[in-house]
């Protein structure tokens, strides 16, 4: 068995730690690139959303390297993501690839027994002892949290950095070095080391950077290729960014949701505008917009793939928040286009807008 998985932000780092710990053979697909998108759009249904196409591209490129099993998270939630696993299984079969899909889903939907059964498929391929397997899982979760933590911190502190590009350089080298680690222990040590190194980067606390919250559909805000590397671009402009939705957030949300204890604050913030979950992460998007305003952010950018139903609903609600709270929100819809000109224009103009607003307010004091 040679396992692979679709890319989504930093998940590949945690997946590497897990598979190394389990001693299971795996393939990390090449980082999502134009070729993956081209392959994906060639085979996918025309009107499906962008994540589907990119994921198919990831599988195909992983197959070239010998992958035969795909691990994927499922969702019976009311958006098209719920259909991804079934559709992708069919599609890959039709293309003549005999892939084994292991779809991990919440016990509420598939039953605890079935979940254990599916996990057993992966861990069965490992020759390690039960205790070692458990440790591998725990280490992988730690890695996920750490890398999400490091990334969030680096992106937020960028606005305060004394030397331009210091945080970006640190973040990039952290990710690159993590991939050279042979064991999960080595990787954890590296990540702890990088996390403390973040605190040593010289910052200027007197700076008043532009702060932007990235909100919207989870895949397109996490997978950098799909949003044309918006966070890296904003880092280059010296803008501090924050995004709440991350793989580790997603996991926490999943565990807490049966108890209805998940993301209480976001739900509370969203109540005035969207009191119901309508699928996807629409309610989170609304809640985060309000939260970002309350936390003193200068603006928010909503990103979603074309045709994303939940986010279309939140897009229609955001202007009201924007008006009532005097809080600029820009929406970017991403699709197969890789031409960046129009996209960069919007981002630059939005940053300009926030900057000028800020200066204007200050001059009025």
């Amino acid at each position, binding site marked *: 068995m040679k396992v692979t998985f679709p890319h989504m932000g930093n998940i590949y780092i945690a997946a590497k730690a897990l598979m190394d710990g389990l001693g299971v053979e795996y393939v990390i697909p090449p980082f999502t690139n*134009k070729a993956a998108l081209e392959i994906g759009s060639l085979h996918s249904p025309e009107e499906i959303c962008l994540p589907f196409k990119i994921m198919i591209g990831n599988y195909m490129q992983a197959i070239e390297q010998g992958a035969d099993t795909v691990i994927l998270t499922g969702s019976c939630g009311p958006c098209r993501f719920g259909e991804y696993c079934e559709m992708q299984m069919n599609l890959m079969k039709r293309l003549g690839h005999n892939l084994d899909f292991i779809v991990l889903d919440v016990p509420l939907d598939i039953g605890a027994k079935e979940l254990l059964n599916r996990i057993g498929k992966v861990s069965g391929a490992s020759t390690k002892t039960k205790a070692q397997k458990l440790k591998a899982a725990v280490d992988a979760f730690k890695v996920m949290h750490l890398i999400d933590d490091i990334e969030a911190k680096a992106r937020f502190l960028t606005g305060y950095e004394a030397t331009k590009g210091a945080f970006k350089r640190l973040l990039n080298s952290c990710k690159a070095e993590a991939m050279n680690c042979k064991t999960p222990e080595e990787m954890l040590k590296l990540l702890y080391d990088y996390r403390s190194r973040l605190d040593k980067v010289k910052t200027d606390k007197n700076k008043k950077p532009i702060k932007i919250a990235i909100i919207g559909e989870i895949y397109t805000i996490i997978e950098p290729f799909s949003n044309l590397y918006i966070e890296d671009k904003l880092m280059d402009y010296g803008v501090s960014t924050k995004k709440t939705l991350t793989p580790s957030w997603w996991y926490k949300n999943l565990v807490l949701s049966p108890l209805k204890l998940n993301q209480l604050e976001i739900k509370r913030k969203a109540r005035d505008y969207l009191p119901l979950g309508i699928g996807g992460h629409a309610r989170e998007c609304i809640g985060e917009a309000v939260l970002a305003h309350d936390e003193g952010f200068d603006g928010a950018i909503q990103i979603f793939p074309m045709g994303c139903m939940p986010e279309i609903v939140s897009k229609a609600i955001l202007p009201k928040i924007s008006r009532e709270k005097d809080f600029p929100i820009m929406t970017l819809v991403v699709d197969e286009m890789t031409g960046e000109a129009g996209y960069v224009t919007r981002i630059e103009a939005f940053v300009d807008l926030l900057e000028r607003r800020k200066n204007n307010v200050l001059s009025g004091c």
Partner: protein
Amino acid sequence: MYYLGVDVGSVSTDLALIDKDMNLIDSLYLRTKGRPINAIQEGLKLLKDKNSNMEIAAAGTTGSGRHIASTIIGADIIKNEITAHAVAALEIDRDVKTILEIGGQDSKIIILRNGVVTDFAMNTVCAAGTGSFLDRQAERLEIPIEEFGDYALKANTSVRIAGRCAVFAESDMIHKQQLGYNDSEIIRGLCEAMVRNYLNNVGKGKEIVPKVFFQGGVAANKGIKAAFENALGFEVIVPKNHGMMGAIGAAIIARDAVAKTGRTKFKGFDLTDSKLVSTSFECDGCSNKCEVVRINENENIIGYLGDRCGKWSNKIAI
């Protein structure tokens, strides 16, 4: 002491030369024809020939080709066209509250309050509300685009044409032609369809209040201006240099930037005699496989564009 603004758009490349009192000394409108380097070089040559002995104190670029333009001329600032348009409009009138801008491939709306941009929007995936669409239809009707507006004003009634999509608008228009409507009625219908599409699409959810400026190449079209005034119910002002606003804005921002830095990076007019060649290659440094463009001036490499990590263009942080 003059300030130069270069706006490299999809359809046209505009160059504006302003003096320190913000008077437009000279302006050029050239077709980009998909070859921005040639257009910029040609533009500079024409400017040089017309105005001898001028000294450029600052240069700025804008438009979708602003990065390549900056590499070539050595710009002090590279600014997006939304900010450039807003700055140019505010220079004319501090009270402007809305800017409608329709160019060749894109259309924008900019909302300003108290002299600050507070909101903006650009057309998304569809080009139905842009100059290219009108160009295409003018061609089909065999009417010069310059006379398009006059035709629209001649009509007493208008024909309703679906403006949602350029392709469907065209078939709708053909259908109406077959029914026997005359050219001016059809053209007025087209103008109204385009305005309707613009307001429903780009202007959706935006509060459009006077003073409204109408800028961009399409503002020359009287039919569209009239259709806007009809739909909005108040006067729409077309500034004198409506087609040059992007370039003027870039020049103004460049002037302000140089006032801070003290000296310009502008390379001078000698480059009109240089041989500029661009070649592209696929970088194989990582799986991104960026298509990198290299620009040579004579024998020297003057810049790289298109690499994401900055390995070639020496942007910050790899």
